[in-house]
């Protein structure tokens, strides 16, 4: 589904990302871990064509992302709260994203109904602007918005941060289900090793812009990761 070819990103002389080759097959739940500055968000930004690669390119479902915009209809993402429109209510935001992705109101309402327990009654029908919601609730709204329009690729940057424990557990189940049942390619980055090993079938560790580990998740994975980051 996603193929990364010799991509590098430099700011001045500093190399922040250098990936020679990375293949992510369709329907994989892909976890990206690494300390601050490892290049996780840079990688996601390159995937979304928000920054220009210094060299190399990324192919998303046969489309080179920095050449054509045709990857947009099947790719959705939530990177941070700048993906929200602060002066809309959550409902208005969902409908807006729905319109952009060819979904009518009934489709959106049906989708939102599935997330009633995820929202915990704090998102819908509150008559509040997104900018007035708490950080955690903003995050929930953004994550659910990324599920709109049956995307084939979903990119979530740090989705577990700021979420309450119940929602973290639900989100793990959702990610697993999307990948296993619906063949959606889910890319997740996280600082929380436990969550990411539980949610993802493959973990890639970035350090200073380079891949240092590429693991198929097993019972040993969490310990392996902990040893790596402890050292």
């Amino acid at each position, binding site marked *: 589904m996603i193929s990364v070819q010799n991509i590098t990103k430099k700011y001045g002389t500093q190399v922040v990302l250098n990936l020679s080759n990375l293949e992510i097959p369709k329907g994989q739940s892909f976890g990206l871990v690494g300390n601050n500055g490892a290049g996780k968000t840079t990688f996601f*930004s390159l995937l979304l064509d928000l920054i220009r690669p210094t060299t190399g390119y990324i192919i998303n479902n046969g489309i080179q992302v920095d050449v054509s915009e045709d990857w947009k209809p099947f790719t*959705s993402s939530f990177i941070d709260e*700048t*993906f929200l*429109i*602060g002066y809309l209510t959550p409902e208005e935001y969902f409908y807006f994203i729905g319109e*952009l992705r060819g979904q009518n109101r009934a489709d959106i309402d049906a989708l939102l109904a599935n997330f009633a327990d995820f929202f915990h009654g704090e998102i819908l029908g509150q*008559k509040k602007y997104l900018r007035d919601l708490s950080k955690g609730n903003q995050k929930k709204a953004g994550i659910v918005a990324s599920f709109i329009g049956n995307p084939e690729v979903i990119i979530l940057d740090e989705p577990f941060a700021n979420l309450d424990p119940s929602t973290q557990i639900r989100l793990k189940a959702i990610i697993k289900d999307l990948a296993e049942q619906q063949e959606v390619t889910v890319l997740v980055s996280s600082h929380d090793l436990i969550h990411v090993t539980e949610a993802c079938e493959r973990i890639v560790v970035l350090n200073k812009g380079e891949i240092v580990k590429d693991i198929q998740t097993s019972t040993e994975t969490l310990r392996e990761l902990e040893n790596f980051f402890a050292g």
Partner: protein
Amino acid sequence: MIFFGIYMLVSLIGLGTGLYFILEKIFPGADPMLKLSELLIYWLFFELFVRYFMQKLPVLDVKPLLLLPIKKSTITHYVLGKSIFSIYNFFALFIFIPFGIVLMMHGYPMPLVLFWFLSILGLVLMVNFINFIINKSDKALIGLVLVMGTVRAVEYFDLMPISKYAGDVFYTLYENPLLAVIPLLFAVIGYSVNYRFLRNRIFLDASLKKKNKEVVSSDMGWTKRFGSIAPFLRLDLKLIWRNKRTKMQVFISLAMVLYGLIFYTMDDFGPQSPMLVFVGIFMTGIFLMNFGQFIPAWDSAYYSMMMSQNIPLRKYLESKAGLISVSVVVMFLLSVPYVYFGWEALAINFSTALYNLGVNIPVILFFGSMNKKRIDLARSAVGNMQGTGAAQFLVGIPLFGAPMLIYMALVFFVSFNVAMIVLSVLGIIGFVLRKPLLDKITNVYRKKKYGMIAGFKEKES
């Protein structure tokens, strides 16, 4: 906006200086000071009205102070004391100090005038503190409007000369310098009422909490007829209506239709003066300039989302162009009464409106591609210069310069009528070519995408 501030200041001082002579002219033979006293009550109401909408007690600023070892009473005094130096208190002073100086030059006794200043100061501060008290409820506003309306009505139907009574009261303040104590006392009372109210409420969950009004959500079904640009149009309308700065611009734009009066009533400009072309472009294009110059920075807070979402950039720009076109038409319709000053006025406003529609909309959208400065919509409107860069000043040259030059050349070499027709035709040509022009502009936006995303991410401006 800094120019706007200076402009306001100069206007107020000018008004203050000229006020004596204006009053002398309108009420010949009457004492201007007495007349001013009669008008003062309206001024105070007006000030209260403006403050109600614009001025809030900056209680949110004290949040960081709560954790420091400072007494809450000190914090309260700090907030209230700070409000004394609010810009709103200076508006009146900028009018009344020049007025007082003119008074003294006309032989009014200096000590009386100086003590009268004190009274005015007391009244202004009193209004300042009354505003903070009534600001907390909508009912107070209705009450205020009712009182204003009643006073005016009673006056109008000659039931009771209220402003005369009020005038006598204020004039007495002037005649008896020691009475200046009374308004000052009122100000002190206002201060202490506020103090008592606020002191007990400096907690995160009480007055320091931002008030979240219930959002009135509308699906704006009528926008559907605009087809594929409808979602963006809805977003833009919400953007304008739900954010202070953009909302202010709508009101400023509507008010600016009066701008032409300044020029049309001056005898220095003939009915065909190039200055009136400037006025025409300005009046019909005020929203075009105010709103258009910050496209796409209005969406800067979520621009990376827009760029990774399934959004045709073309539709995005089309919606902005559509919105601005509507504003040009509305502003033109509002400017139709200028026909009172002759058919030339109508011709000028019509041709400049067409020119704005056809030529200036693409021009301003093109210049928008140079915007790289973030705009924080949550910040207040007054004196907010965020997002202003060189592009905002450069854009004035083609917007105004080009049509004025064309006009002057044609009037000089050919005739007024031809100049009008050429400006209109240019507008129509631009309108016909809008599709290919927008295509070109869309490409420019696409090329500059990475720079815009990076620029809009930088918080400090």
